[in-house]
């Protein structure tokens, strides 16, 4: 958690999209930006990139105000996936409240995926995040490409971890909302358990998710 100021009724939460380079983390955020209603969110901020690759991070903020007056700000970040930017990943990951691991579904990327997941586990430990407690959702992206690992295999391989796994095609906006909805829900539950959002601040789970996940009227879940 970035900030919880009870006096000024303000809470700032952090979600992080993690994963190997070119797996589609920024594309996920761009799709969220396009799919979700302007009222619940701020602008997508893309920091300097080089050759279309994130070297710092991207940021998409969401807002919610509870009937009690508690303002909750949810900041969604991506990390740079390239191995050399490990220090940046660690910095972004600090005090995260939820993580989405975006994997590349292509057969050729399986080793890269697992290295990146190892890196996530290591960095979580280093910045003091609990692997058992932190909400973590896995997304297998690029389902539209040929030579991808079949869904059965993916689910079979990840079953033992107990983590929720989603199939997606972020470029077409498919699976993006489902992934985001899951991580926001899990994060809400975790924060609620710790700080009593519902009990003390009248934050309703459905209302919170509904506000943040309010889709644009123009397109109902899919980018045309």
């Amino acid at each position: 958690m970035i900030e919880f100021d009870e006096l000024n009724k303000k809470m700032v939460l952090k979600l992080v999209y993690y994963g190997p380079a070119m797996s589609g983390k920024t594309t996920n955020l761009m799709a969220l930006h396009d799919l979700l209603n302007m009222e619940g969110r701020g602008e997508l901020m893309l920091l300097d990139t080089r050759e279309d690759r994130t070297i710092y991070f991207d940021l998409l903020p969401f807002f919610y105000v509870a009937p009690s007056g508690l303002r909750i700000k949810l900041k969604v970040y991506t990390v740079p996936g390239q191995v050399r930017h490990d220090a940046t990943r660690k910095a972004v990951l600090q005090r995260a409240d939820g993580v989405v691991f975006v994997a590349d579904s292509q057969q050729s990327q399986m080793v890269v995926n697992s290295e990146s997941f190892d890196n996530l586990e290591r960095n979580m430990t280093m910045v003091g995040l609990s692997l058992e407690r932190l909400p973590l959702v896995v997304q297998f992206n690029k389902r539209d490409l040929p030579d991808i690992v079949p869904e059965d295999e993916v689910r079979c391989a990840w079953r033992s971890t107990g983590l929720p796994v989603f199939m997606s095609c972020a470029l077409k906006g498919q699976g993006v909302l489902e992934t985001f909805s899951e991580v926001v829900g899990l994060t809400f539950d975790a924060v609620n358990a710790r700080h009593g959002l519902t009990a003390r601040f009248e934050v309703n789970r459905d209302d919170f998710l509904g506000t943040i996940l309010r889709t644009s009227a123009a397109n109902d879940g899919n980018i045309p």
Partner: protein
Amino acid sequence: MMNEATSHIDYLIGEEKRLADIIRRVEVEPLLMSIVRAGAVSSVLFNEESLPLAEAGSEPDFGQWRRIEYSIKVEGEPKGLLRITGKPDDMSLAPMAILMRDAVQLVVTNNLKRMMTTELHTSIVQESYEQLAAANRSLVESEKRYRDLALSLEQKVEQRTAELQNAYARLLQQEKLAAVGSLAAGMAHEINNPIGFIKSNLSTFRVYLERFAEMLDFYRLLTSKGANPDQFKLMSENRWRSLKLDMVLGDASELLTQSLQGVERIAQIVADLKCFSHVDEKDHSDADLNVELERTMSVLVSQNATEGMFVRELQPLPLYACNPGLISQAFLGIFQNALQSRSEGLLIRVASRVEEGDIIIDIADNGCGIAPQNISRVFEPFFTTREVGLGTGMGLTVARETIIAAGGSIGIESRENEGTTVTIRFPSRTERNR
């Protein structure tokens, strides 16, 4: 160093920022001023607490004015308020206000991006620096640890080496004493033998002496009684025969001759021993090594060797300054090794010669030889191929120490089942003085 590393501000990505952190008065005021110059009455940017952050122109206290307000967002969240005031009939006020809003918003957003980039960059540089500093500290520590370790290791090695050298020196001394002991035991046996028969001879001789005395007493008795010559002759002959004096006289002479020979032999052994150990000589003297070889062989002959074993090929040698007693002991060790190499038909070739001024001595046997894998170890302390109790493994070690101490060198060559040759080389006098 330490201060530099710890004094940094902990930067958290996502930390909320106030408008005043993002944008400074001097950055916005020129923008606000431009709209006033274009005809607006005043232009003000308020912060989160509705206090002016920057302003241009001044709002009149009275009259009819038109106010246009826009919120300025940080990360999409309204934080500041931009208020443009102008004349009610100014048609360009509204489009100018939109332009102003977009310009201020752009500055805020760009500044925020730059700040986030800079802060992240700084924190990464800081972290890398701290990692390097930590790595450096641990390197310095481990280097110190290894240096201390190396230092104490050196001391320990020196200490252990000294201990080993002491132990080795004690062992050499013990081995020398043991060699002297076994020599003494051999000598005692050799001396005991003649002493035994001399003692027995002398006991017999005492019995014989009593008979001579009895005969002489009888003569004296006959003379004092004044016996006639015939009587005298008859009685004395009878007594002479009953005392078996013919046999006794012959035997007594034989006994004394034998005893004298025994004494001679003891004298010879003692002389050999004295010469061998040089008890009556100074520590260092000019020695003829051929003579030392002969002495050693003769001591061995009086123990467990026979004269026939030795084949001498001795050429005249120059005198060599050394402690002859110690050199003889070294020879003894080498000979004893050769003596144990074969039980029957053993021949030991003892050769001496001069080569380019150096004295060369070969002691070669036709014994069992030494296995190739053992040849390099024969001078090692305690190395022995003999059964437990039969060899200490120190004989050749002591020999080598002694030869080297005397300025010489020793080498060994061997073929299994053919024999072993030990070669000793003493340098010429000139070379030694060099």
